[in-house]
């Protein structure tokens, strides 16, 4: 008799456990306004990334087309993957002294692991992490970027 009772009790317990599970899913089914999906390309305008988000390395320029990069190459040394290449050139300044300045700050986005070591090591804060995360390109050539804009020059007062 007891085993029969247990058998029936077991069935009802099992059904109850199933019903509690169904209650959880039903709760979410009937509250569709709590849905978590975001419609991504449509919400581009309202989508704001956090300011520390590491999307890509960029070099900020001011309105006079000036940057802070001295071309010292510390970021190149600190990069674990070789995604930064510094090409510098010699110029003669007004005082007649020879000086090395940056020619091209080449950044290989395809090789970058976004570890932040270059930004952390930069003595003049010339490069920062940008928030752009849409890195799809048609060819890999476009993933190699020159960070300093053409015709730009170094900001005055940046310590060499």
């Amino acid at each position: 008799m007891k085993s029969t009772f247990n058998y029936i009790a077991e069935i009802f317990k099992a059904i109850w456990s199933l019903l509690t599970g169904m209650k959880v899913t039903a709760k979410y089914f009937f509250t569709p306004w709590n849905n978590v999906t975001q419609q991504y390309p449509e919400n581009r305008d309202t989508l704001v990334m956090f300011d520390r988000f590491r999307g890509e390395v960029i070099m900020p320029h001011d309105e006079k087309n000036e940057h802070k990069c001295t071309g010292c190459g510390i970021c190149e040394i600190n990069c674990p993957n070789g995604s930064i290449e510094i090409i510098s050139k010699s110029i003669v300044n007004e005082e007649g002294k020879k000086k090395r300045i940056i020619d091209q700050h080449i950044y290989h986005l395809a090789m970058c692991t976004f570890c932040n070591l270059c930004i952390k090591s930069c003595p003049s804060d010339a490069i920062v992490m940008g928030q752009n995360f849409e890195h799809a390109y048609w060819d890999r050539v476009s993933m190699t970027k020159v960070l300093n804009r053409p015709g730009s020059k170094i900001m005055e007062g940046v310590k060499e």
Partner: protein
Amino acid sequence: MAEIIEKLITTDEIKTDEYLVNMGPQHPSTHGVLRLLVKLEGEIVHNVEPHIGYIHSGIEKMSEALSYPQIIHLTDRMDYLSAHMNNEAVCLCIEDALQVQVPERVKYIRTIIDELQRLASHQLWWCASGMDLGALTAFFYGLRDREDILDIFEETCGARLTLNYSVPGGVMFDIHPNFQAKVKAFIKKFRKILPEYDKLLTGNIIFQNRTKGVGILSKEDAIAYGVTGPTGRASGFSCDVRKHHPYSAYPYIKFDEKVGTDGDCFMRWKLRMDEMRESLNIIEQLIDNIPEGDYALKMKGVIKLPEGEFYQRVETARGEFGVYIVSDGKKNPYRVKYRSPGFSNLFAINHIAKKWKIADLVAIMATFDLVIPDIDR
């Protein structure tokens, strides 16, 4: 001839038809490129032979050519679900070798991030093993709640998965001003959601039948195979590095090491659920008491470790993670070896999956919480 036939009929191995099935490298429940060569008889598993190396990335070899701050970001890519614990292990090892004391604030921040990472990892484990057992909806609930933690990470650390937040001597940035408020809000929210997880799966009769008594790993086997983490603790192997060899802020806080008894799939499941609750407790103890101070020590531009060998162990979400650095006094390590928890855990599967059905093998793998890059390194 007759003899051979006689032998064929009487030998146990030939009497029934066994066949080999490749589970993986592309299989939905191996969670990556793990290949299990399974010997089956009907549905019964007779032997499981893991074949690994499909994403062996040679991190140990690569590290020999990189400087110490640079090798940290590679550890993100091993066990990507406990990225910060891996980072921290290398940092602690370097700090230990240099004999520097990091500020208290750093210890607190690291521990909080550790526990958040453990929560995120266990959430992903929860939802993925729910999916392995056929409850697809669980997968989305787990990912939904993990999103909150990843947002916290993104705001403070700048990345969601490969954090690279610990650096030798501290952390990369100070915590974000919103950090404490957000973590507290998350704890409050998640405490409400956890019972829902239990309702959906843990209490479910189908789920209990699938996991209770399945794939029992005894304590002796757990120790012999070096199975650590929640998987080992479910078998009664008290192996929590946080408790036995405390590091960072773990000595300052009170928490229980959850140790199970049965060692079956259900115990492993329950233990991780309990660990999530414990992690919430740990964070609650720390979050209001983060001391003021620097978030990083000023380290030299080029870090050189003194000659010698250094070993550091931490507890990741999967078990004991060890870093063994051999230094010859240069700026690159002479040899780096990572003792990854998944590697040891994986090979215990063959021992316990025998005589169970193929569906149970999936349940066992789900509750072992394997991350393949962690195994392959």
